């Protein structure tokens, strides 16, 4: 099972947990699994067309999936998936 780190705003869907387990061979499958376990949790992550929301960044092992396979990015059981909102990086 991959480890999914949740942003603060989604933790209420998972009983306040900062990280949960989920499985899927691809990120898309993993998000579907996450939605099954915690209904409503992917509402802000995916658009109605099932694409990644513009202001959400998802990382597999700290690498942004938009530069890998996006929702088709492969996920291994040992992987860490992080979901974060887009914020200004400062300076």
């Amino acid at each position, binding site marked *: 099972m991959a480890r999914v780190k949740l*942003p603060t*705003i989604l933790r209420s869907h998972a009983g306040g947990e900062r990280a949960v387990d989920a499985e899927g061979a691809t990120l898309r499958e993993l998000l579907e699994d996450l939605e099954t376990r915690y209904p409503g949790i992917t509402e*802000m992550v995916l658009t109605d067309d099932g694409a990644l929301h513009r202001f*959400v960044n998802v990382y597999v092992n700290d690498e*942004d999936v*938009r530069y890998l396979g996006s929702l088709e990015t492969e996920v291994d059981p040992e992987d860490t998936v*992080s979901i974060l*909102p887009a914020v200004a990086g400062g*300076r």
Partner: protein
Amino acid sequence: MRFDDVLDAIGDTPLVGLPSLSPPGVRMWAKLEGQNPTGSLKDRIAKAMVEAAEASGELTPERTILEPTSGNTGIALAMVARRKGYGLTVVIPDNASEERIRLLELFGAEIVLSPGDKGTNGSIEIARRLAKDDRYFMPFQYGNPANPRAHEEGTGEEIVRDLPEITHFVAGLGTGGTLTGVGRRLKRHDPKVKVIAAEPELGDLVYGLRSLEDGFVPPIFDESVLDRRFLVNVADSVRATRRLTEREGVFAGISSGAVLHVGLRVASELDRGDVVCLLADGGWKYLSTQAWAPELERAEKNVSETLWW
């Protein structure tokens, strides 16, 4: 080297090899932007944004420059404002390191503090509200094309000149100006060059206050120029910053550690290559964070509570 004034001394920074940190077959390089007059790459964009506004007529002598900044841009603007005779107000998160606030004060900038737990988004919010008053001119580094242009024509041009055989470029993702500007110049030089972003993993509080729909992607950031983007946490950044000093004698800021961390991760996948890491500033402004303190854990904790990016 001789210049007519300090503004002409901006840029043309050294590109230094990192032989002790280079894996077999790969050469690691660091561009030392800390060697700019106020100690960061922001001198480039401060000069460019102010001069562009003077040329367009947006900035006239009676207007005051106003900018949301976590420090470096404010300090750079303060130098430019001093040299050119403009007033400057900066909006900065209250958890910025004390050196940054001290520097702004001694350059004569007026400081407005924003809530530290709202990060840079908080300072942008307040600056936008203030900027409605016509006496202010806000360069707005996040949306000003003079920002990436300065990097395309300056930083990127210098890299192409000094290391035409570059294969990978790594820089921090803040406004997106460096990656966009240097990225565009490098892709024009050789479309095969990989442009890679190191993004800071900020504290929970900074992420926590926003709905995912309230996100912010800087308007000047051209994501199409990126090939890869990595998240880096405070611990890895601090550790890498320390390695730079310990192994190479290079004294750089914490974001430079994040960039090196990503550069080394990418280099470990290569048989050969020339990887340039853009080190945005020197370590001076981070000494009070204890980032180089003997106990690594304390260093990491202290840095994470301050504005390290």
